[in-house]
């Protein structure tokens, strides 16, 4: 036992050091793109592509961490969280492009709107359990996307319609740097919120609901209020990410703010990193998003996939992603963070055990 606790601690330390190094690199590299650093002859570590990918990763950190609050801690398989992202994006986008609000005034409205929406929708939906909740939330996600694209008033699309919504470019020096740090701030907020939730009365109530909802109600947890609170919290964070995305990307439409595959990606990230933990979903988001970008060929370091032509590459990348998804779900059901915790080691016995536990 003592030896195990020792390895446990050692793995924790290695993992922590690794995280600090990656975090420090991600936070400091952008500074080399400042004019002062450039004139001082510091090598440029972050170009436009770097900012684009890093901001995307931070965005998924927010979404996966937010999903974890309702999906991981509360145990409700939300499959339509992308609706909150889209609502946040369109709230900020409309306020900026139509009402001419300044970005920093329009941004806080995004989480407010998506929270309000989540509360209204959550009250009836969260009465459903299991598959039914998943399917209903998926339906809400799809329906909201369709409505936003198609609602018209006197023949004019209210939200820009199928051609989308263009925002004026936000005038700020070092745009890439600004939006990267803003998204990282959002990610930090969502991780801090998760940390707080897990230590609060709310969090204990949510975990009780996940483990046994009837029992939780019996011991005095107001299950409806708690579930809606978790749903609204996830919505607020996701909406914040959407709001930042709209001004960062300058152009929003149904395809880039309500994509169904984001629903799957955020869940997969949370699962990969470990649901119900504080840092797991964030780690999963970084890993999976890097992998997606790598397979898609947009990272500076890229390997050729043998026997595959350049044009077929994105398609083959998707096939590999699918195979990976299947393999992870079958063999590593508790997430890769299991290994870093030091409690378990990646071994044939582990794979065989997880197979035996879940298969027919």
């Amino acid at each position, binding site marked *: 036992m003592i030896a195990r606790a020792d390895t446990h601690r050692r793995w924790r330390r290695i993992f922590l050091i690794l995280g600090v190094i990656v975090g420090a690199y991600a936070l400091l590299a952008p500074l080399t793109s400042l004019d002062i650093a450039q004139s001082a002859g510091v090598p440029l570590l972050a170009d436009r592509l770097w900012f684009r990918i890093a901001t995307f990763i931070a965005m998924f950190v927010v979404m996966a961490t937010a999903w974890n609050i309702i999906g991981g801690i509360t145990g409700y398989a939300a499959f339509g969280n992308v609706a909150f992202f889209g609502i946040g994006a369109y709230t900020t986008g409309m306020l900026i492009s139509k009402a001419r609000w300044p970005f920093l005034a329009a941004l806080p409205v995004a989480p407010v709107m998506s929270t309000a929406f989540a509360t209204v929708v959550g009250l009836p939906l969260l009465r459903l359990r299991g598959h039914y909740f998943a399917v209903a939330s998926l339906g809400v996600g799809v*329906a909201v996307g*369709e409505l936003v694209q198609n609602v018209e008033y006197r023949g004019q699309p209210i939200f820009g319609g199928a051609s989308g919504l263009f925002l004026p470019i936000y005038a700020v020096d070092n745009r890439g740097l600004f939006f990267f740090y803003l998204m990282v701030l959002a990610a930090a907020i969502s991780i801090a919120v998760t940390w707080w939730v897990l230590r609060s009365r709310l969090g204990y109530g949510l975990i009780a609901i996940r483990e046994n909802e009837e029992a939780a109600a019996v011991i005095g947890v107001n299950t409806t209020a708690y579930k809606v609170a978790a749903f609204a919290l996830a919505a607020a964070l996701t909406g914040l990410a959407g709001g930042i995305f709209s001004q960062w990307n300058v152009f929003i439409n149904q395809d880039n703010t309500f994509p169904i595959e984001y629903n799957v990606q955020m869940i997969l990230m949370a699962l990969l990193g470990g649901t119900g933990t504080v840092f797991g979903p964030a780690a999963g988001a970084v890993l999976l998003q890097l992998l997606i970008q790598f397979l898609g060929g947009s990272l500076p370091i890229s390997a050729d996939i043998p026997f595959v032509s350049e044009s077929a590459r994105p398609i083959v990348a998707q096939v590999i*992603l699918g195979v990976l998804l299947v393999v992870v779900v079958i063999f590593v059901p508790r997430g890769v963070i299991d290994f870093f915790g030091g409690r378990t080691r990646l071994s044939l016995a582990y794979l065989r055990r997880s197979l035996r536990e879940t298969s027919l």
Partner: protein
Amino acid sequence: MVDFVQLVILGLLAGGVYVAVGVGFGLVWGVLNIVNLAHGALVVVGGYLTWQLFTTLHLDPFLTLPVDAVALFVFGYALQRGVINRIIRAPLLFTFLLTFGLNLIVVNLLLLIFGSDFRSVTPSYSGQGFEFGSIVIPYVPLISLGVAIALSASLAFVLNRTRTGLAINAIASDRDAAQLVGIDLRHAYAVTYGLGAACAGVAGGLIALIQAITPTAGEPYTLQAFVVVILGGLGRVSATVVGGLAFGLVEAFGQSIPGSGSVFANAIAFGLMVLVLVTRPQGLMGRLR
């Protein structure tokens, strides 16, 4: 009045395809408790099989449907036996993710094989129909509705009148008890999924006749299957038939709402689905289990 009758007819005919898309999905969901996100991809595979047989062998598209069914039964059986059976005891989210992964694989393999061009199957009689006064009944959707009803009826027959069907019903009501009385669970699960895939294949063949298909077109079919199954209710084939026809009607009326109503058809359908889920989770005709 004539418009109304025409609308009802078109809605019911369109519902035929939705019935076909829904029955397999409902079977897999109701019996195996798997929400099969790869269903749409299987539908598209069926569509491409029909297209391939039609263009290379010049077979009548409706004659290719049994081929679709058999091919997809085999594929579905192997998929369930080899892959999906491995996670049956895992939390429900895992089946979502696993079937989404399978969907990704199938769709992108289709893209590699067939490219992203739209393909359509157009026999000589497509686009023609009967005329009663001013009401038109097109042939292809009419035969499709007939095929869908026949498909549902034969599925109901298999489920209620054969030994295999009894085994499937047994695992639907209690998996462990079914195992105790000697049912080979792995085989029965695989047969059930295979039957679901076969229905998807037939649905794909019908869809290829009605609209152009492309590998990435599967997602709407999965979503439609959701709506159909929820509307009708889980657990009975006849409920899915009602759900499919109801969905066809809802869509036809949704599209006829004056002033760009057609673009709201999906939103109306999904709004209705959420409404049914919240107010009557067992569906219009379903039994609560």
